[in-house]
Every structure is written in structure tokens, then in C-alpha cells.
């Protein structure tokens, strides 16, 4: 039962208060994109066994979306950040590196 920090409410939230929105930092493809890019945006997922960046919404609370970095093996959470970020903030990446020396970077 995850317990994740909501940056808006400034508190930890029980998993039952949240809903997960899947992979973060996807770039929306509109009608001008190729079918292949559109497919990648809509369906293809990194689904890493290890550290992932994902979207959550505090649906029973403030209603705000935010992002987290989480390990899908241990469920360790490396921090929450605003859903408006187009890439993970440096502080989050630094936290990850502190725990995982072999972390390759978020885009890899």
C-alpha cells in the first residue's frame, strides 16, 4: 500500500486517495504527426523494471496531478514533483543517483 507525497497538499497520501496515470513526460502527438509517432505516444511504454517516472493524481484530495520517480522492484519513491515539469528536476535525479549509482538517466 503505497504512501506518496502530494506536493500540493504537502502531505503523504494513502494509495487509496490517489490514482495512477502511467508513464510521465510523454509528448502528445497531434494530427500532424506520423502514425508511428502517434503509436509511440498512445501505446508504447518504457515499463522499466527499475526506476520509472510516472503520473499520479490526488483524486480524493486536492485533485491535482503530480509526478513521482519510483522503483518498480522495491517501490522506493525518490520524490514527487510538479506535473508541469517536462523532465524530472535535478534534485530528483540526484536523489536517485545517491541510491542507484548505475542509474543511466531518465530518458534512457
Amino acid at each position: 500500500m503505497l504512501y506518496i507525497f502530494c506536493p500540493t497538499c504537502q502531505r503523504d497520501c494513502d494509495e487509496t486517495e490517489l490514482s495512477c496515470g502511467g508513464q510521465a513526460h510523454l509528448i502528445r502527438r497531434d494530427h500532424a504527426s506520423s502514425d508511428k509517432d502517434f503509436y509511440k505516444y498512445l501505446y508504447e511504454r518504457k515499463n522499466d523494471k527499475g526506476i520509472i517516472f510516472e503520473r499520479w493524481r490526488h483524486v480524493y484530495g486536492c485533485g491535482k496531478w503530480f509526478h513521482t520517480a519510483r522503483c518498480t522492484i522495491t517501490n522506493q519513491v525518490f520524490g514527487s514533483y510538479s506535473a508541469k515539469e517536462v523532465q524530472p528536476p535535478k534534485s530528483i535525479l540526484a536523489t536517485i543517483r545517491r541510491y542507484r549509482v548505475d542509474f543511466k538517466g531518465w530518458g534512457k
Partner: protein
Amino acid sequence: MKRYSFSSIFTEAFRDNLGWEKAWAKSLPKKEYDVIIVGGGGHGLATAYYLAKNFKVMDIAVIEKGWIGGGNTGRNTTIIRSNYLQESSIGIYEKSRFLYETLSQDLNYNIMFSPRGVLMLCQTEHELRAMKRTSHANRINGVDTKMVTPEEVKEIVPIINIDGPRFPILGALWQPRGGTARHDAVAWAYARKCSDYGIDIIEQCEVIGVKKKREKIVGVETTKGHIKAKKVCFVAAGHSSVLADLAGFRLPIESVALQALVSEPIKPIIDCVVMANTVHGYLSQSDKGELVIGGGADGYNNYSQRGSFLHIEETVRALVETFPVISRLRQLRQWGGIVDMTGDRSPIISKTPVDGLYINCGWGTGGFKAIPGSGWATAEMIYNEKPGKLASPFSIDRFLEGRLIDESAAAAVAH
């Protein structure tokens, strides 16, 4: 291979069972194979078996990072049914169910296929209409199902509460030839027969790299060394994305934990499988007497084989409401399986961007029922180097073309 028969059991009983051989040989990898199947679960073993049986391809290795049947094959609620809505789904699941009927005899191993019937409850008008649509689709495609009334439901499952105040039972879709099987035995039975065919089953052997030459597969790197192969097929369920990553492509898949639980064993109270999709729960009773219960999957990616209590709670709540007498039975054990969910919740049996590399994955929460059919179709694809009639609707391309196979139309969560 020593056959299992009345006489062999009788003979062995009187000599302390000393004559039984290993169910499958413990093999070490050879340098090279015609085909390597990565993943020693039901789907992988069945693929190897049908390659050998239907296409006489014998030079095969099945490599498994843990132990045979240790993934979702050994972690599911053992339901077998084919009452799907879409024609392509019906095709593969009905083939599978049909193969299950004689699987014990075909493999000379009692996998305890028990066609005790699957009852899919309708608890809203909308679900009732959707289920009627499914029943028509089933009939036209040769699947034996029918709609039954609430009274008939009560007759089939006397412990059910059909007048629940919140979601009364309005009817159900009944598939008398659906049922359950002993999940571990399915893996063991295929492994034993594969071994008998001379197929190498290599446990504790994890793939750590994929060898390609000009986008053509040439082998795999494993914890037991490099193994060359002409063709490779990934059949690794929740871990498919990890393997695809090694091969340099991504899949339209997310891995999530699906939870199930069993109760303490009790004397028989329910003789068929009941699925309640509106309230998200399904229930059957094993031959040991345990109630086997499944429900929804976690909403987030997870590889930890343990999940949240949330869905256990929701599922049990729904079932206690539907079957009030079970409230005083106790939860004995819960577990999670890592299931691979695709964008349309239907499976993938497909070629990949790498020549000679095939993939079978995306069975999500409902793979057990598909094992024989999926193995059959995948073997056919590997042998012919292109998907056959059963497999072709399930290629990865469908997402690119918008050709989704969406079963949720039937208001059914896939199981």
C-alpha cells in the same frame, strides 16, 4: 518416458514408487538450437510442445530464469472459458478450451480440467444487454453459451444472493463447458512431454542479452552462457518489456500486479466458476476445498510480485455481498502475479522489429485459459515465419493501424 497408467501406478505402489522417473530432464544448454523459447511458463512450454508435435521441429530449448511454471502459470485463479465477444478472441480462446478438454489424455498427465461451468453475472441492465450480445456472438461462432435467468443462477449456485439490494442478479451468461484446471500441472505436463520429445528445458537460466546481426536474431546471452539460435521467441508475460528492451524495441505493454487469494478449505459449497464483473470479483472452489478468489489489478506499474491490499479488499467485499455465507471463511493466502497489460487488453502474438524474433505476450489477467491455443498459434507462427489465422489479428501492428481488439465492449473485465 514411463507412461502413467493404472498398471504402472499399481506396480509402483508395491515397490515404494521407486520406478518413477524425473518428470522432465534437467538440461544444460547446447551451443545452438533451431528455436529458443524464452520463458518456461505454460505459454512457452506449450509453444515448444506444438512446434515439436505439429511441425516436427525438435531442436528446441526452453529457457527459464526461475523454475518451470513459476510465473503467472502458477499464480492465477485457473479459470478456463471462451465466452468472448470479438471474433478473434473467440477464435483463440475457444481453440484453447477445446484443446484443454483432451489435454490430460494428450499429455498423459492429469491436469484436472474440470468443465464445471462458468457463470458470468449480469448486475445492471447495461451489462445484461452487453452479455446478451456476447451470447449471440458466441453462438454464431460455435461457442456453447446461453443466457440464464436469475432463478436458474440460484439453481446453479445455491449460495448466491440474487436479490442483493445494490446489484441484484438480472441474469447470467452460462458457459457449461468452461471451468478450471490444476494450474501447476499444466506446466508440468507440457514440460514432461517436451522433455520426452527431446526438447531441452533449462531452468535457472536468465537471458541477459540478445545477439543480433543486421537486425536478425542470432542468439541470446544467458547466465549459463551464449546460446545460438535461428529463431527466438519471447514468452515472458510480465517481463516481456525487459526482454524487448534487451532486443532494442519497446512494447505497448505495462506490467502490473494482479492479486488473488484463497480461503481455508471447506466442504463443497460452489460447483462452478462465478464471475461478477460489475463488482469486480470471481470465485471458484478448488478440489482441495479452498475458495479461489480473484479481482482487479493494481493501477500502477510493478514488478514486485506483491501488491496492495486495496484490491483484495474490494474483491472480497463484492464477493461477501454476493455470497453472504463466505464471510466467516478465512483468507489463507494471498499472492500477486505480474501481468502484462496491452493498450486494448488483448494479447500480442507477433513478429517483432528483429528478424527471427517472435513474441507472445500481453495476456494480462487472463492468460491461463489461453495456454494451449496460444502455444498452438505461436508454434504455427514460428514455423511458418508468419502468423496464421488464429494469431494474425493479434499482431503488434494493430495498434499502429487502430485495429484494436477491445473486449471491454462486453462490459467484461478480462480475466
